[in-house]
């Protein structure tokens, strides 16, 4: 498994030979030689993420967990949007019994790709549903099974943030960081990322080895490992159920990403359409995940409309305009909405939605409201944070785009959200709610 992963890592055409050599060595069990070769290569190309990644894997093989942690940590710092290094860090931390750190790393891994979050939450709901049926049987309740409430699963409306993690990540960075210094720094870095964002699709496409990262865990190696390692290590290795039913989640067509890297601005458009199948989380066999698949087709247009290239100046401009009162009113409504949500005050929360509100998935407003109520009241706690709101007002319509940080006892997720609001009787209310860009 490990070598499989290594082999897959070694895709980059320019250095194909080097990667092939290393993976061949590793495959033959010559870990030391492989490591030497890796170091040799890195002395010439110190930033090469593929080789650094490989080095981390090889160090792990050799039980040099501290060094491996250092390598992967540095990778996560340099490439915040790559899930793999986070995941490997988690494996290493878990092997050391540092579960808090492992958990944090895994949550970051998931956060690199918002569609994971949705899939994860959807899966959680499926499991929750099944669990409640099981409890009903256990306790002979028979009651709640009667109404198999329509799924609360979240449909992915757009996929902008889900596949080309790299691109979007970069974009949001720009949008959100008004500091002019940050902007110039990005483009420079922007030359490297594509390399890595390829890594997952390549893996997934090349061989049926969706296990690329957990594969690493196979290595926390021979019996010598201490007790903790012995118990922890086996965990990720088998990943049996998931392996088959979850088809490679990241088949983001490689070319698209490359294009994007070359021309960062217009890229998002083609990407969504092509990668349509990508975000489908297809959570287990269970419900055959009816929800997410078709989603992307619908949503992209509205999102596309406004994000102009350099977002930074925007807020200033808006602020400069005299009509801040409307803008303030809109933002106050958004904040109130978030507050009601976080307070799990569903009545108040629903009050922020206009009568014209268009529930997603074409469901009725009643069904949507019930679903929201179930979803919000069902949580132990909810925390919602709104950051960097951008407001665009056009007569009685406003469009607010912001970064939303959502945390519940089950999940924390960060995403971009757009609320389309209308003014009814002097009051701004939500007409449409779109996740992603």
């Amino acid at each position, binding site marked *: 498994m490990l070598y499989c992963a290594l082999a897959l890592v070694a895709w980059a055409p320019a250095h194909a030979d080097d990667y092939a050599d290393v993976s061949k060595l590793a495959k033959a069990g010559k870990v030391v030689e492989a490591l030497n070769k890796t170091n040799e290569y890195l002395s010439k190309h110190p930033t090469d993420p593929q080789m650094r990644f490989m080095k981390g894997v090889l160090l792990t093989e050799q039980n040099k967990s501290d060094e491996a942690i250092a390598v992967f940590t540095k990778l996560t710092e340099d490439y915040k949007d790559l899930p793999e290094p986070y995941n490997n860090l988690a494996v290493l931390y878990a092997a050391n019994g540092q579960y808090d750190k492992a958990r944090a790393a895994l949550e970051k891994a998931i956060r690199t790709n918002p569609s994971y979050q949705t899939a994860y939450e959807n899966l*959680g709901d499926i499991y929750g549903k099944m669990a409640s049926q099981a409890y009903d049987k256990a306790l002979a309740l028979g009651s709640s099974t009667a109404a198999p409430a329509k799924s609360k699963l979240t449909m992915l409306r757009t996929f902008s943030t889900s596949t080309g993690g790299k691109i979007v990540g970069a974009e949001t960075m720009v949008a959100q960081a008004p500091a002019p210094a940050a902007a110039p720094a990005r483009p420079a870095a922007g030359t490297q990322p594509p390399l890595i964002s390829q890594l997952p699709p390549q893996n997934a496409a090349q061989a049926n080895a969706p296990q690329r990262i957990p594969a690493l865990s196979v290595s926390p190696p021979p019996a010598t490992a201490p007790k903790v390692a012995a118990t922890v290590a086996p965990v990720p290795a088998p990943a049996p159920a998931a392996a088959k039913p979850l088809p490679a989640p990241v088949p983001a067509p490689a070319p698209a990403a490359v294009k994007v890297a070359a021309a960062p601005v217009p890229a998002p458009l083609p990407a969504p359409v092509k990668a349509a199948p990508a975000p489908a989380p297809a959570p287990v066999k269970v419900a055959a995940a009816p929800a997410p698949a078709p989603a992307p087709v619908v949503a992209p247009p509205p999102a596309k409309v406004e994000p102009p290239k350099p977002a930074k100046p925007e807020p200033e401009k808006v602020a400069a305009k005299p009509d801040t009162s409307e803008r303030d009113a809109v933002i106050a409504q958004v904040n109130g909405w978030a507050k009601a949500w976080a307070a799990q005050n569903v009545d108040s929360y629903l009050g922020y939605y206009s009568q014209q509100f268009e529930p997603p998935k074409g469901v009725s407003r009643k069904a949507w409201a019930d679903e929201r109520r179930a979803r919000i009241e069902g949580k132990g706690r909810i925390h919602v944070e709104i950051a960097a709101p951008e407001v665009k007002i056009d007569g009685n319509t406003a469009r607010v785009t912001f970064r939303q940080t959502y945390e519940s006892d089950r999940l924390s997720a960060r995403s971009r959200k757009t609320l389309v609001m209308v003014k009814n009787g002097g009051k701004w209310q939500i007409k449409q709610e779109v996740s992603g860009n």
Partner: protein
Amino acid sequence: MSHLAFLRKWRAGSVLGVVLLSLMGGELSYAAKKPVRAQAARKANPEELLNDIYKDLASHDLGSAQRKADALVEAYPNFRLGHLIRGDILLMHTRPVTNLGAMAPPGAETRLADLRREAAVRLQAERPAPTLLPRALLQMRKDQKHALIVDAKHSRLYLYENTNDGPRLLQDFYVSQGKLGINKLKEGDMRTPVGVYYLIGRLPGVKLPDMYGKGALPLDYPNDWDKINGRSGSGIWVHGTPPETFSRPPLSTDGCVVVSNDDLNFLTRTVEIGKTPILIGDQVEFVSKEQLDKDLRQAAELVETWRRDVENRDDASLKSLYSARFKSAADEDINAWLDKNRYLPGAKKITVTVSDPSFFRQPSQEEVIVSNFTQQIVIGKFRHAVRKKQYWAKEGKNWKIVAESNVS
């Protein structure tokens, strides 16, 4: 989506420790050491599956635990505890579960508490080390092929086989007992009696109401000692479960001992009516062979003293072996009882032998030894044999006969 798979496993692992600890206390290591039983072709025992599931969880293998839980409820669709644990395992894929049935909906707290107790009892089930023997089975009669011991404290029934090398544990079962526990005193007190009893019948399920399941094995409660103590009530049976549930909570019966229908069928085929003893108590101990032999010698010595006194016609000494509380089944006092049992009172030279004895120790705080034996008296060419049952109870430092009857 490999991350998800990994995450799920990882979370489950971290949380499981907690569940296990809260459930099993110190039993975890014991469970781990337990030898893996051969998975024969027979239908997997649900309790073994349960244990396997918990072992999987302890070793952070949520996937395997899930598969086993799925299989468990498929094989035993009425095993409510199985459904409960499966519910927990489903949730563990995405969130911490800190307690058995932690996320179960409100409104069924009593049932949930019952299932938790059942889980605790089942997971803590003890199987004694092979070298240890039940202290209650001092000596079985040669033709008694089996004996049952009910450990009320642990809701466990042990089935022993009588071999030439002593008792051998064949199997053990989860049982339910009276709602208010043990020490039955009177009719309707919802308690299970404590004592040494025999299975005295087989009632097929088809002739019984649904609640008895596949059948019943009645006990001879109240026995002589119970009667002397004024304990009343009747109809204490070992029986099965109604069709809608695989098992019942640990404390849920009106005094009967309830096992699953599968177990009842097995027991029904195994036991011998009128011969197989069933010892019920809350102090079931497992001791070394040496300890058991010592206890047996002591018990045999009691009966031997009694035999000598009968043979020597030493009435004063004989009478001193009987308790002041003694009463016969016909409510006679000691003098009347001894008079009645004096064979050919005029004869001077008699020989008394005791054969085919069995000795059972009541598995309770109260120390009682029940001995069955054949007493043969030979006077010249006259012979007289009678099967006797004696209840010896410890009074202070001495053992006294508190009840005695002749078994026809």
